[in-house]
């Protein structure tokens, strides 16, 4: 609420405060009025208003007004006391005094409804103009669905504690379900078309992110891509690591040569165990920041995973 509105709403209070005189500045009025308000009026978003760095901080919404000269009684005293320059008949309309009083009370100008900066306009909720935090999917104030934010990484999307290879699969699933519970297009029937579209985009992005983060191989590829390492899926070149390739070739030949389901299931079990071992080593490599090892292990995991697909294809039923 602006100071003007406050004044119109509380005329009696104002005249009482001012002791019959004219208000010095609207801001001074606002502070006095704010002193009367209790703490009911608090914003529900995480946005905290820009605080003046210097001088006594005045929160528009806070019930308390800090600074020595701004308690009501003190203000009254300051302004009804005899003016040192002109004696008791003076109406205290001295520009200099006014300014210093204003400065003393506010420090800098308070932050009422100022124009939002360009950056903030982009992030302000369309419905209610409250600022929505980066990555916010739905406005806290008016529950409007926000457009999807491309700059979020998948880890940030799910509010995971950190962007590392190790993650708790149960936490991931919990977050996924929470997000879809709030955002699924099926729940948006009553919303306008624009918001339904946003919700659909959100939901498909969340599905994609979930599937990528869930499988260790794709998670590793994604992490490498995040760190800007040219390897994994993004790497369109060829490798000639003779040991690895020879192993892969022999394994594939082994699978190719047999059609016996028993033998194939044994190979599958061995393959899955191999994958688990590789995942454990990958986790250690990412934790220690050894990117070269991470790249090499990701490649190995890629081949082993491909082999698993081939075995599964050959097995009659699974």
């Amino acid at each position, binding site marked *: 609420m602006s100071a003007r509105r406050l004044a119109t709403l509380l005329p009696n209070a104002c005249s009482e405060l001012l002791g019959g005189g004219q208000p010095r500045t609207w801001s001074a009025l606002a502070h006095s009025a704010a002193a009367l308000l209790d703490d009911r009026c608090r914003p529900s978003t995480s946005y905290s208003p820009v605080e003046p760095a210097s001088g006594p901080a005045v929160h528009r919404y806070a019930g308390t007004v800090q600074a020595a000269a701004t308690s009501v009684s003190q203000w009254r005293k300051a302004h009804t006391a005899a003016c040192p320059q002109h004696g008791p008949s003076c109406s205290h309309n001295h520009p200099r005094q006014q300014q210093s009083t204003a400065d003393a009370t506010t420090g800098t100008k308070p932050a009422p409804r100022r124009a939002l900066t360009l950056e903030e306009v982009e992030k302000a909720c369309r419905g209610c103009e409250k600022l929505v935090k980066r990555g916010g999917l739905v406005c806290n104030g008016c529950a409007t669905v926000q457009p999807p934010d491309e700059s979020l990484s998948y880890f940030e999307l799910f509010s995971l504690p950190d962007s590392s290879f190790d993650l708790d699969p149960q936490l991931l699933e919990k977050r996924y379900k929470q997000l879809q519970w709030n955002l699924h297009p099926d729940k948006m029937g009553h919303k306008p078309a624009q918001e339904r579209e946003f919700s659909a985009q959100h939901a498909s992005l969340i599905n994609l992110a979930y599937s990528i983060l869930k499988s260790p191989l794709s998670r590793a590829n994604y992490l490498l891509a995040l760190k800007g390492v040219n390897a*994994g*899926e993004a790497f369109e*070149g*060829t*490798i*000639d690591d003779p040991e690895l*390739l020879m192993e*892969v*070739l022999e394994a594939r030949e082994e699978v190719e040569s047999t059609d016996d389901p028993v033998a194939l299931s044994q190979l599958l079990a061995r393959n899955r165990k191999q994958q688990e071992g590789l995942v454990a080593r990958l986790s250690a490599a990412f934790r220690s920041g050894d990117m070269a090892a991470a790249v090499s292990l990701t490649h190995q995991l890629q081949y082993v995973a491909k*082999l698993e697909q081939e075995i599964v294809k050959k097995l009659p039923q699974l």
Partner: protein
Amino acid sequence: MLASLLPSAASALSSPAVGALPLLAQQLGRRMYHKNVVEHYERPRNVGSFDKSDPDVGTGLVGAPACGDVMKLQIKVDEQGNIVDARFKTFGCGSAIASSSVATEWVKGKSLDEVLKIKNSDIAKHLSLPPVKLHCSMLAEDAIKAAVKDIQAKRNKSATAAA
């Protein structure tokens, strides 16, 4: 099945434009493998292996981690440095198999210097590979280079050993 479908379409078409889809494919609204790819996939040439330890054999073993493909290309070289025979073994998609099959056909009868000039773009053009499969032809080119490198290393080693 595809092969039986394509020859009829290929004979039926008379499209002058290079790279235009066969009429049947256009009507069906889907992309089909080029007949060369199908040919090399269903009747691959030169599948097999040589003995790796043979001093006249060069082995190129390359892989594409992005798709999990692996390709082995072997060449048999005579004393003058001409390739007399080639074999390949590829685990991968149809385009990768066709690319390596084409590579083994093209290297036969050429010298080691000549085969190094074979570019992946030539292979891709011969097979009309779509953009998403261009890395398969790259794999074939790298396999040829690796095989040549291997035989040269072997020859150098035997030369220095003899000297």
